[in-house]
């Protein structure tokens, strides 16, 4: 039935993060029909898991609220969550796309009343907390989830717990026999906005992310800072729950490194500068942030954010790629390396280490259309070229390590390219 509503006039947007939502909404607000598919149970992507944005220190959910309101008020966008693209065939203006819909086990009757979660006992790692916290196996991804429907973790299907959930629901919203579905849709153009994932920090062996509890990643730190996160917004270190006042930020954790990611991930410098604010907010003058860097890459007007942080006496900068981390007997990470500005060796103890992990494109590890052009790091090429022959356009962090502002810029551009395709086809078909 999905196929029937989609035509070669439809624009398919793959990925429901800020990039995909933007591309979908901008096209829809130009009057185009859009199908927005998202792999997870909710829209929002990675930005929904961030605490604040640089440089304004405002909250990602604020922009998401506006985008969701745009979405609720616009009938041109059809959202399909828990949906992945299996296969794309056809040509510019006339694509056939095979989609896999994974069962949510909860239907649109769900009112988000939460009774099922009360009934279920099984707890699972919460993927929307980077597995730093547990959640019931019947759960709402987060407070800003769209659609505002619960989801059942597949692990409990066929167990008594699942039955309890079903029984607890007064609205027949839980369908335990929901099956995986494969559907085919038509689309004239495709915007590929599959975004990024944090580089696997365990691969950076000298930093011992896999061995030391008090070495965490920058995305995890966002959750710690978040009042709705696993620590209720307190900056406590994992090993012993001690207040982490003296925090080291290690830049280029995976980025600019031919053993890991060739490219510079662009956002990490600003992200760490932003996170020093969290430390200051939490501990005032007792806070101590140290940024270990190769080059501080905060371009354009963001420079003054950097200047402000430099003036903060609780923040210091060391031009050095940390050589290795060891753990002392008290479980404190000790950083070893050399400050290259004039050569000074250090062996510095911190409460907590935050690795500014690089951005790896999600294109690595998912099925892509055959003719898609990727660069050496796996980012989609061509998004900034004049309208080409292809009808598939990369958008947002899938095209380059971009911050939110530039992802949205990129997604808006991609939306226009997609519109060009359907306009051309409709002209051909004499629709317009």
């Amino acid at each position, binding site marked *: 039935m999905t196929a029937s509503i989609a035509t070669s006039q439809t624009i398919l947007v793959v990925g429901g993060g800020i990039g995909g939502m933007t591309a979908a909404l901008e096209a829809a*607000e130009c009057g185009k029909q859009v199908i927005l598919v998202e792999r997870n149970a909710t829209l929002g992507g990675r930005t929904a898991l961030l605490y604040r944005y640089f440089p304004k220190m405002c909250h990602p959910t604020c922009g998401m609220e506006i985008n969701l309101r745009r979405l609720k008020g*616009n009938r041109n966008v059809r959202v399909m969550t828990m949906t992945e693209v299996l296969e794309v065939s056809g040509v510019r203006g006339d694509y056939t796309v095979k989609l896999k819909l994974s069962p949510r086990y909860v239907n649109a009757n769900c009112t*988000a009343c939460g009774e099922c979660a009360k009934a279920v006992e099984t707890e699972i790692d919460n993927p929307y907390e980077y597995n730093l916290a547990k959640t019931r196996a019947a759960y709402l991804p987060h407070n800003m989830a769209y659609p505002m429907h619960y989801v059942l973790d597949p692990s409990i299907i066929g167990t008594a717990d699942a039955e309890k959930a079903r029984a607890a629901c007064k609205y027949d919203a839980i369908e335990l026999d929901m099956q995986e579905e494969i559907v085919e849709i038509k689309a004239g153009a495709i915007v590929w906005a599959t975004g990024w994932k944090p580089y696997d920090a365990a691969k950076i062996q000298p930093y011992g992310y896999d061995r030391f509890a008090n070495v965490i990643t920058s995305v995890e730190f966002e959750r710690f800072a978040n009042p709705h996160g696993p620590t209720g917004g307190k900056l406590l270190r994992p090993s012993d729950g001690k207040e982490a006042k003296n925090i080291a930020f290690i830049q280029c954790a995976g980025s600019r490194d031919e053993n890991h990611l060739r490219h510079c991930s662009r956002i990490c410098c600003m992200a760490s500068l932003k996170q020093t604010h969290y430390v200051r907010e939490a501990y005032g003058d007792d806070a101590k942030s140290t940024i270990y860097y190769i080059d501080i890459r905060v371009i354009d007007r*963001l420079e003054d954010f950097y200047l402000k942080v430099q003036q903060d006496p609780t923040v210091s900068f060391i031009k050095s790629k940390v050589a290795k981390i060891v753990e002392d007997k008290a479980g404190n990470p000790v950083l070893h390396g050399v400050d290259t500005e004039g050569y000074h060796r250090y062996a510095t103890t911190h409460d907590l280490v935050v690795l500014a992990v690089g951005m790896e494109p999600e294109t690595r590890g998912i099925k892509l259309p055959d003719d898609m052009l990727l660069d*050496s790091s796996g980012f989609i090429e061509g998004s900034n070229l004049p309208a080409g022959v292809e009808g598939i356009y990369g958008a947002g962090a899938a095209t380059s390590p971009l911050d939110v502002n530039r992802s949205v810029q990129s997604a808006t551009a991609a939306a226009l390219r997609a519109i060009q395709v359907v306009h051309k086809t409709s002209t051909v078909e004499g629709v317009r």
Partner: protein
Amino acid sequence: MADVKIEMKTAAYVCSGCGLGDKLDVGQLARIAQKEGKMALVRQHDFLCNSEGVQMIRDDIENEAVTHICIAACSRRAKTEAFNFPSVAMTRANLREGVIWVVAEGAAHDEVRQEMADDYVRMGCAELKKSRMPEGNPNHTQLKNLLVVGGGISGLTAAFEAAETGYEVILVEKQAQLGGWAGKLWKRAPYKTPYAEPQETGVAALAARVSAHPLITVHLNSTIAETAGAPGRFAVKLAQESGSITEVAVGAIVQATGFTTYDIAKLPELGGGLAHVVDQAGLEALAMAANGGVMKRADGREVKSVVFLQCAGQRDDSGQHLPYCSGHCCATSIKQAMYFKDANPDVNAVVVYDDLRVPGMGEDFYRSAQHKGVIFAKGKASSVTTESNGLKVNYKDLILDSGATIQADLVVLATGQVPSSGVDVILWDKLTKEADGGSIEAKQQKSELKSISILNLTYRQGPDVPKLKYGFADSHFICFPYETQRTGIYTAGPVRRPMDIMQATEDATGAALKAIQAAENASLGRAAHPRAGDLSYPIVRLEGCTQCKRCTVECPFGAIDEDERRFPVFNEQRCRRCGTCMGACPVRVISFENYSVDTVGNQIKAIEIPDEFSEKPRVLILACENDAYPALDMAGLSRIVYSAFVRIIPVRCLGSVNTIWITDALNSGYDGVMMMGCKKGDEYQCHFVKGSELAGYRMSKIGDTLTGMGLEPERVSSFEVAITDNAKVAGFINDYVAQLVEMGPSPMKGFG
């Protein structure tokens, strides 16, 4: 319009699902809707949002000719797919997130919980009766063509992409040829794999395609003499060099006026002004002359040694030069160093940098330059002086921590981009006030200022698009890079923020989409972002207007002009529907069909105020619908308890709050009013620019009114609430209610 509307028939639907039925006496709610709310039709349902419940409502609209419905169930943010009835006016009484999820459990609280629900039903009905179905701005416009100002790479791209989408474009360039700065480049930095070599700019080709495009008209040697009108009906006067004027009409505008380079004469310490010290643009000229051969200086001598000094007059905290980083300069110097190395590998090319900023795949370009033998020295240049036939660069090598000197034939200063963004409208506004006050030199300065204007808008708020820091005409918002303060006018490229060609072309493409979108929305009488698709629009009863000009002055988007009699002239297509004008109007003649002084005022008056002995204070909360209201909603979702004495009304923006609401509330016996808006100041959150600031300002002025009524000023307070403040906002409420209890009941009770 009001007269042509069909018979109003109201209906209320009370849901008992999600525990509403268990925690509330829904029968009573229904009775209230009928008796007090005067709803023509009242129905109950135990699962209103399911297909059956929704069908019931549809049938009533079909068969019972219901035109107005009040849904008494969950928050207006929930179940929007189910409760979607485009043909009728609708209000939502928030009984779930707003009552049963936030009022403490247990029988002890049954009474206050029920009272709260009762009031919300009363409010929902009261609002409904004053609401009308928005029908869209009747002054439809037809124009969907675009004006693109600036023929550089950004303007060319915007024009080309828009035309490729099927929209007509008028492209205006003040120079005699297209291309701008990018047209003066020998090569550009790479934008595709392997990111190793400088690439053709492609500007000439693009310019040719634009000139040849059937949907694009190019005006060279032209500037904008005047821009009047609004999205969908802009009237623009183009002034040719010759002085002749062409008038064109367009639907929307993309401003891609780019930048100028920072003057190296301002950098004497770095050799600015000396022979053979050039900026990056100057180096491109030498490269053009060399045409791929060995690089020569202006005096024809071959360059054997060249030094690039990064951040020249940029990233400056002394206040003398540019404080920001222009982003592209590191990659540009790398590219330019390659000009030398590619022509002759023996040339000594050194780049002196502080932080080498080549984000993303730029790292590969950096590697490529190192591979070609370009030397990168982390250092700070102290001086550049002439020596015999060459130059001497002194700098501190930050790695070796020692002074160093390089002999060079040529020195290139990587200076920054200065945006060409025209008049600073803040200054303009200041001068206008002074000029109106009779200041001669203010008048003088104004006309000087006018001469640098780019768009020459006839708007009351000034002739150009407002600038942010450092003169860049950017959006203030991270999630919405195209949210300018002048509807239908979108800036793109380095005028918006410093950027390289790669970003500029993408930016221009995005701006083209936004311009197209604005024209399309205007033609349908709809609002633009952030209330995209909103069909309501400001309606003014001029007969009641006192020409006080507050609406024209306070409109954040310059939507309201003044006619010769100083009456406001609304340009609905410029309007963003925030309601700031409505909040500003002292005589309350401005309203929206579904959001007016009455729709809110009626709710305020609808509630039941317990007498002063009941020990049940009542607090009115006016909450910004974008941050505070969702925060309150999510407090409910997280089952965070707060006082049942509050009554919450969402507002489009605190800027739309009319002080009459406050005085009405206090007169009718409320004990206090909480105004919840978003963050103020430099990093403000308000998508209507200064809503919470305006509210704060207005409230500061009703202090006297309060004392006049014998009320403590604390009975009205403002709070900054971020969307994540779920727990915090509950805290605010409970503390404030406690404070009021402390203060004792309002003396106004009973007089209401």
